[in-house]
């Protein structure tokens, strides 16, 4: 047991001190700071970017002033100036004083006709806002002509009430589901990257020890099983350190921007009301998923004899993780589909897909318990087989063709 801790702390500390780890952590933290402050960044870049549009009023009326008010109501960053004719407006466009101009004409059958001309029409924001303002203006004028009262106008503009209600009693409401989707989406990414990154790290670590032949000394002083699990736990601790840093920073940064958080972007991702149980399940499934794939990675890493072969060796494992992630991504839109239910019980997919179900639906507890039990059993089974492969694998040098090497490794570790 004592040696377990020595290997664990060595793995943890030596990884923690590597340049690549420190650099990637710092970059990631900078990225988190940028992402959590994104609204501030957008504001700073956008504030002095007032866009001007010229309006040519061909209706002989005094539409310009009321239109200007309407546009200001729609988008206060869009300013309207008046122009006499298209020639003048064209010159202003060429001088880059305005982004484009709008012609407003009278049309007997339709009321108004607006034509927006600009060099670039890819920015639909401006034309949309202009249309919206024009529509408002038109309904206002029409209402005036029809002599509608204020109340009648309100009645006319109120959209119908539309609600979605789940028939199942404990099912989440549409609103809940949308909120959950954002959170689950982000956490799925975290699980995906975490499992892939740290499992690869384990495989590399084992392969490095093996190719540098330090393994032979290690294995003569520490049982391979102890070594393997100490290493897996050491990297797990490392990942926790990194995650705590990332989430801690993210949380603090979001809290700073709390006012901005309740609106738009963050509300869409469901951060407004973070669901504690979803977070807990994410931690459980991320850890179990990591353990499963790390055990697999340690075995695969132990049978290669050249560091260049590691990527090739673990590619089937990588594929499994990617497939699980793809299924989970498809499942986000329809988490109650039967293929999601089935795959959530397959241990290699459980960490992501069962988490998706738990996060999006109200899954009966026994289903979660079964999937976790199957997952833990698989980890133990893989651990037992893995320890054998590891024991033989680390003594084996030569070509590394996955299946054959694994068979050879098992043979080497046999009792007789």
């Amino acid at each position, binding site marked *: 047991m004592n*040696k377990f801790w*020595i*290997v664990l702390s*060595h793995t943890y500390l*030596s990884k923690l001190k*590597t340049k690549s780890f420190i650099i990637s952590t710092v970059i990631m933290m900078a990225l988190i700071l940028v992402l959590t402050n994104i609204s501030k960044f957008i504001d700073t870049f956008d504030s002095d970017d007032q866009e001007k549009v010229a309006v040519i009023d061909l209706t002989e009326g005094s539409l310009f002033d009321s239109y200007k008010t309407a546009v200001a109501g729609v988008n206060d960053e869009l300013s309207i100036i008046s122009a006499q004719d298209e020639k003048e407006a064209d010159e202003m466009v060429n001088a880059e004083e305005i982004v484009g101009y709008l012609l407003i004409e009278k049309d007997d059958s339709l009321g108004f006709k607006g034509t927006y001309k600009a060099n670039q029409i890819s920015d639909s924001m401006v034309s949309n806002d202009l249309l919206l303002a024009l529509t408002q203006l038109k309904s206002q004028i029409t209402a005036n002509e029809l002599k509608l009262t204020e109340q009648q106008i309100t009645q006319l503009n109120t959209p119908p009430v539309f609600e979605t209600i789940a028939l199942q009693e404990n099912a989440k409401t549409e609103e809940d589901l949308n909120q959950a989707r954002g959170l689950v989406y982000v956490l799925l990414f975290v699980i995906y990257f975490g499992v892939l990154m740290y499992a690869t790290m384990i495989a590399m670590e084992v392969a*490095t*020890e093996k190719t*540098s*032949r*330090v*393994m*032979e*000394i*290690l*294995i*003569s*002083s*520490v*049982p391979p099983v102890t070594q393997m699990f100490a290493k897996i736990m050491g990297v797990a601790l490392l990942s926790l350190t990194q995650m705590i840093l990332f989430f801690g920073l993210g949380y603090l940064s979001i809290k700073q921007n709390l006012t901005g958080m309740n609106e738009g972007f963050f509300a869409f991702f469901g951060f407004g009301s973070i669901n504690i149980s979803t977070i807990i399940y994410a931690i459980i499934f991320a850890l179990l998923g990591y353990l499963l794939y790390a055990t697999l990675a340690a075995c695969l890493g132990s049978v290669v004899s050249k560091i260049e072969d590691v990527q090739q060796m673990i590619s089937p494992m990588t594929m499994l993780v990617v497939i699980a992630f793809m299924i989970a991504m498809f499942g986000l839109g329809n988490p109650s589909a039967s293929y999601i239910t089935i795959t959530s019980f397959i241990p290699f997919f459980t960490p992501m897909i069962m988490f998706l179900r738990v996060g999006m639906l109200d899954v009966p507890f026994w289903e979660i318990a079964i999937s976790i039990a199957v997952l833990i059993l698989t980890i133990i089974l893989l651990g037992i087989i893995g320890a054998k492969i590891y024991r033989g694998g680390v*003594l084996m040098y030569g070509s590394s063709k996955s299946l054959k090497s694994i068979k050879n490794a098992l*043979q*080497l570790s*046999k*009792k*007789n």
Partner: protein
Amino acid sequence: MALQIKEITKKFGDFTAVNNLNFTIPEKEMFGFLGGNGAGKTTTFRMILGLLDPTEGEIVWDGKKIDYTTSSLIGYLPEERGLYPKLKVRDQIVYLARLRGMRKGDALKELEYWLDRFMVPEYIDKRVEELSKGNQQKIQLIASMIHKPELLILDEPFSGLDPVNVEMLKKAVIDLRDSGTTIVFSSHRMEHVEEMCEHLCIMHKGSPVVAGKLKEIKRSFGKKNVSIKADFDLSFLDAYPGVTKVKDTMEGKILQVTGEDVAESMIRDLVPKGFVRKFELEEPSLTDIFIEKVGAVYE
């Protein structure tokens, strides 16, 4: 506390790597393990260390099987040198020593002692990949014996070193033996074994060809070498009865003879012919025995 290797055989599938190996290594002695490439030396070492289980037979140290509970008593220098290339010497040795049951402080003290002794104290904060191959080997040797093991296994400890360093490391290993460590070491260099070991074993293709005390092996080998320098033609000796091998040198011949009696009659025949500058009866060297024994198996 002898190391007993009791009739061990190791098979990998149909291939027999070690066949019926049987010997005892006395306590506090240095035991030489010789053999060509692929003779089964490393496999035997791995079985002694408990990394591989013998197909048949058993290995006991001090009456007990060697496993992870005894690992603090055992030191190992693998043939393929293995250290973490990116780790500093200090972190590396302290880590490996702690895995052998040493305390951090003691390990550091011992490491400083050994680096001083090998005259490379400045390497403590260097990464292993920055060191030359010979210096890496010093570090490797320190790693294998820093915890003062009772049983030390050295797989080709002196290969790839310059003569000064060979002497330095040899001295360290001999001191360790004198302080009570039983040492098993393998080598291609016969003179090292001849110089340092009392007992030895020559392996060939998994089977022991010769095993026992060095002196007895030499005696029972029977054949001796006669080195002759003379002013006259020696070619008649090539067909002399009792001569098994002839090697011409610049000024004379080295002959392998079946025994002392052959040498005796030879000198009587030589003296009347002229002036004999040199006539020396030598013990066979280990190289002779090795070539003879292993070569015989080849034929």
